[in-house]
């Protein structure tokens, strides 16, 4: 397929290319024909910094099933992380009230 399925989002964090880590500006998700994975089409993930050379990217080509599993895992991890963060915020708030 020759799709126009591309999602581009701002990304804060770092990724590894070769032996070096670099700051991210964007994450890109696409569904199009795979370049390397032995698949006709793949969910492609790219973590990039637009100010750096094109070769500085962390990339993956995943089958649709693998991408769905990753999506679900991300959802679970993010939900758990948000619960932790909410608990921490509540704890910090209680400490603040006690200090007053």
């Amino acid at each position, binding site marked *: *397929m*020759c*799709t*126009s399925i*591309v999602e*581009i989002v701002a990304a804060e964090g770092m990724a590894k290319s070769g032996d070096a880590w670099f700051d991210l500006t*964007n994450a*890109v998700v*696409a569904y*199009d*024909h*795979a*370049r*390397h994975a*032995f*698949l*006709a089409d793949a969910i*492609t993930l*790219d973590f*990039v910094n*637009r100010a750096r*050379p*094109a*070769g500085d*990217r962390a*990339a993956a080509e995943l089958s649709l099933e693998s991408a769905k599993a990753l999506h679900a895992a991300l959802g679970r991890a993010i939900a758990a992380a948000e619960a932790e963060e909410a608990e921490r915020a509540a704890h910090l708030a209680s400490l603040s009230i006690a200090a007053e």
Partner: protein
Amino acid sequence: MSYRGMTVEVVTIAGDKGTPIQAYVARPSGPGPFPGVVLVHHLPGWSEMYIEMTRKFAHNGYIAICANLYERSGPGLPDDVAARVRADGGVPDAQVVGDTAAAVAWLRKQPGHNGKVGLFGSCSGGRHAFLYACQRNDVDACVDLWGGRVVMGPDELNAKTPVAPIELTKDLSCPLLGLFGNEDRAPSPEQVDQHEAALKQFGKTYEFHRYDGAGHGFFYTHRPMYRPEQAIDGWAKVFAFFSRYLAR
């Protein structure tokens, strides 16, 4: 049987708005005159496969040129540069047309050229080849291999791709050959039907061939979508089409 020799090199041409871009060139040995082919590369970029196909045309007696349409996204491996292009939202259609015009102009200046130029592209390059043949009138034949997004919905139009190529069909300036896999979804058989209906409506000279048992990219020998039987037949149709319209 004897095999034809060839000379290959990378040249720099003045692309859209005069920006220097590189192009891979393959010329058959001998004085000619030879017809010319401009290859419009696909979404994976100025890739080894397109370089190989450039040589294939020279092997078959064509002066061939394939410009790097992703030059502005920097040096690097074709995959990485193509990923940068993807992260930037693609290349503007107008820029691709400008770069392709430079490749056509380069061909027309070559000694030993017979004055005829064919366009050849697959995937996004098939779409761009068709778009070019509708917007310019300096090529003599156009081959569109499974070009997706010739038919586009309003939600797909943007500053870089402002017009659906199918809307320009009335301006197609040369004969068109289209090869498509019936298992493809972009373009889908229904979209190919729409394109064919538009070509008929405007009385254009065209040949469409649709292959069962094939999807997208069935010429790509290095990918699982390769379909040898359909690809062999498809290449024969490409060369028959070019020999019909590019002979002098």
